[in-house]
């Protein structure tokens, strides 16, 4: 072999080796959750304003047995013997749940939304089946966790946890029973154990409330949901944080509070949100009667619009009159010069799209198969909530406020979308192609913009130092829709202003909720 050949071969092998070795293929996930050491006990949380329940003690929790009782001593003995025979998997679950129950359940919920956020596949004849809550394992699976469904789910789970934790805090400071690791020095504290009274266990309260809510929202995932609830309770027990009676009282309280919240959820109007073919036709007729080009589905085959009656669903911080009053003014007429200018802008933007703009469109796409726009804002919020070391009840408050505002944004946005029933850019000009999937509902106002502005306002209220960051994110999320070729600028501008107005209702609630 010639010298050149030797060099060439050596070089080639070096390139291969370097490439292979430099492939570090482990994925470091964001949102790592170290053990939660709350910066405050939030001892007053039992008096914070309730949302669904009339009072924190609406669900009665009986007084616990004394820590000197034989029954309680037996519970301590059971913890100690369980701690002696722990498996590696149990230790892992303790480490997992010590990151904070509220944060963990929010991650679980985002995963469930992403799993179920898929539209039904068309039948052979071109029609679409409707997901059936009573047959959730079928094809299509139930639910289709689209943005309104997801926004509602995030809000109901967060509110249920928040209500249940406020009630738990009420009883914790009424009964003042310490955690097992504080009662008995032989019980090891395998999670940070604070002075927070243990009865009823906040972990069991969260497990009870979350499992009940999630089973109703994602019935086909019952097995995973149940297992996670059991894991959280087991971790609380094995870590010396709660005894079996702390857990039993917490579980019962969490379930009972969830039952109250579920009663509201089952009558909030979502069942009628899909509408009927007659209603769908009436929407188009109404637009035509106003002299406008009505929205049509560009899915292949054409698909019924997504939840056209969602605008009538019950809001959290707004009355139905508030929803109407906050509605954006009508979009530019489809026959107006303004609309032609808007259309030209989208055409120009899509044609000259930069790589950076494409990245922004993809970053905020949050389309089918993802945790949806409200999930993206939960993702953003989680790290701020973690870094602030909020107590469980304060973390629940933050997620509740955020998701209440986004649910209200969803209701308000859908009310406006189906009132105006305005077309997407690609409908008015088929030469406009999209860099992301085209949502199957009317354009005006932009849902992303409404969700994002509402979220950014609430997060800015909770974390004032980062308010400009949230605002910049919200503006970028809005513009991402024009870069994607699926929205006009006016959809974004008016949607964002709408989100601002909607958030004000939630913030007004928060200002009077007695949380210091």
């Amino acid at each position: 072999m010639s010298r050149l050949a030797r060099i060439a071969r050596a070089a080639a092998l070096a390139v291969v080796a370097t490439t292979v070795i430099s492939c570090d293929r482990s994925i470091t996930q964001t949102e790592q959750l170290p053990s939660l050491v709350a910066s405050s006990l939030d001892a007053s949380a039992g008096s914070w304003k309730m949302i669904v329940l009339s009072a924190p003690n609406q669900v009665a929790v009986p007084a616990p047995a004394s820590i000197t009782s034989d029954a309680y001593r037996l519970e301590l003995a059971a913890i100690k013997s369980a701690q002696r025979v722990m498996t590696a998997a149990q230790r892992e679950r303790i480490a997992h749940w010590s990151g904070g129950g509220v944060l963990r359940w929010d991650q679980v919920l985002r995963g469930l939304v992403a799993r179920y956020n898929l539209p039904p596949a068309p039948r052979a004849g071109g029609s679409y089946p409707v997901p059936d809550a009573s047959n959730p394992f079928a094809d299509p699976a139930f639910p289709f966790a689209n943005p309104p469904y997801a926004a509602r789910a995030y809000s109901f789970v967060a509110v249920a946890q928040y209500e249940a934790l406020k009630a738990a805090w009420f009883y914790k400071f009424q009964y003042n029973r310490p955690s097992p690791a504080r009662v008995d020095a032989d019980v090891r504290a395998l999670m940070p154990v604070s002075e927070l009274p243990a009865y009823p266990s906040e972990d069991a309260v969260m497990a009870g409330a979350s499992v009940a809510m999630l089973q109703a929202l994602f019935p086909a995932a019952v097995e995973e949901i149940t297992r996670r609830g059991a894991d959280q309770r087991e971790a609380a027990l094995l870590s010396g944080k709660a005894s079996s009676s702390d857990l039993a009282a917490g579980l019962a309280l969490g379930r009972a509070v969830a039952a109250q919240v579920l009663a509201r959820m089952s009558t909030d109007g979502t069942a009628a949100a899909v509408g009927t073919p007659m209603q769908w036709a009436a929407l188009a007729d109404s637009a035509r009667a106003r002299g406008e080009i009505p929205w049509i589905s560009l899915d292949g085959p054409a698909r019924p619009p997504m939840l056209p009656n969602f605008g009538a669903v019950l809001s959290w911080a707004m009355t139905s009159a508030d929803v109407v009053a906050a509605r954006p003014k009508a979009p530019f007429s489809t026959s107006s010069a303004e609309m032609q200018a808007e259309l030209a802008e989208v055409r120009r933007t899509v044609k000259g799209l930069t790589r950076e703009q494409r990245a922004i469109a993809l970053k905020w796409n949050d389309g089918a198969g993802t945790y949806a726009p409200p999930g993206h804002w939960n993702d953003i919020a989680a790290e701020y909530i973690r870094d602030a070391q909020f107590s469980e009840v304060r973390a629940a408050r933050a997620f509740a406020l955020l998701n209440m505002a986004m649910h209200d944004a969803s209701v308000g946005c859908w009310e406006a979308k189906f009132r105006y029933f305005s077309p997407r850019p690609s409908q008015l000009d088929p030469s406009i192609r999209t860099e992301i999937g085209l949502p199957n509902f009317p354009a005006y106002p932009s849902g992303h913009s409404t969700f994002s502005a509402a979220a950014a306002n609430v997060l800015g209220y909770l974390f004032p130092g980062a308010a400009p960051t949230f605002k910049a994110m919200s503006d970028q999320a809005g513009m991402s829709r024009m870069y994607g070729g699926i929205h006009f600028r006016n959809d974004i501008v008016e949607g964002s202003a709408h989100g601002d107005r909607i958030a004000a209702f939630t913030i007004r609630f928060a200002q009077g909720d007695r949380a210091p």
Partner: protein
Amino acid sequence: MCVGPHSSHTRAAPWRTIALALCTAASLAVAWPAALRAQSMDDAIFMDRRVLCAGLLYTREQWSEYWEGSRKRTSGNIGDVTTQQATWMGAYGVTDRLNLLASLPYVWTRVSQGVLQRQSGSQDISLGVKYNALSTPLTSVGTLHVIGVAAVSMPTTDYSPDFMPLSIGTASRRATARGLLSFQSHRGWYLNGSAAYTRRGNVRLDRVAYFTNDQLVLSNEVAMPDVRETAITLGYARPNLVVPIVLTNQVTLGGGDIRRQDMPFVSNRMNFTRMDARVQYTLPKLPGVVLHAGVSRVLNGRNVGQGTTVMAGLLLAGKL
């Protein structure tokens, strides 16, 4: 010694043979979604020392049916998906037994229905080295060649792999090791068997979370499962004509299925079995010019389109 299906003719007509041989480094036809779209470097042909062969191959793949997991279907949101590639490729004989190979495709994708934007761009450059470790007579009928190929591949632009099936590639860095046994009869028939393992580096998305393989991943990074490929080639070679028939099987060693009515995802488990038929013809009056043509069809697959591909190419060879 020149190793090729026509090696018995090497001494008699070196230029013709060289062109024919080298330029057989044909790009394998594309199987959506372009898991290993680059040149496969899977043949038993070597350039003679100091011979350079380079040229362009054009492929056009189209499919309307695809496998959503194992369910075969069409989608009204995409209709027919068409992927065209113009691939520059070159090979150089460092020695008769050691060749360097390179290729770089430019890719265009589009759909026939729905609103999704067409994509195009320069895709991944591949660099490889091919070594003939052993050539030994086997029976009185022919010769057995043992060949190893090592190759790396990396994106040349920062295209997004997050728009499947329209993304122009997976944007993954790859390293492939291939072993190839070739039995070449004195009468022109040849039979190749090859196996390759491709290790794939993580890719980055423009978003912060994604759901695949039943899991929400809170990261912009996607772990790409490795890929195993096996191929059997039955071919016939004359001095200015080579006709290989190739059966290729790709298995992705991990990754999730496309979910019901979901878009495909970059790390999906993309498997397929494909049949290729190709013709390489050296112009009798211009022995440095080789014309390529081919067709291929995906016979079976998972998370890929059932593509039909046509290919045409022109390669030029000469001694430096």
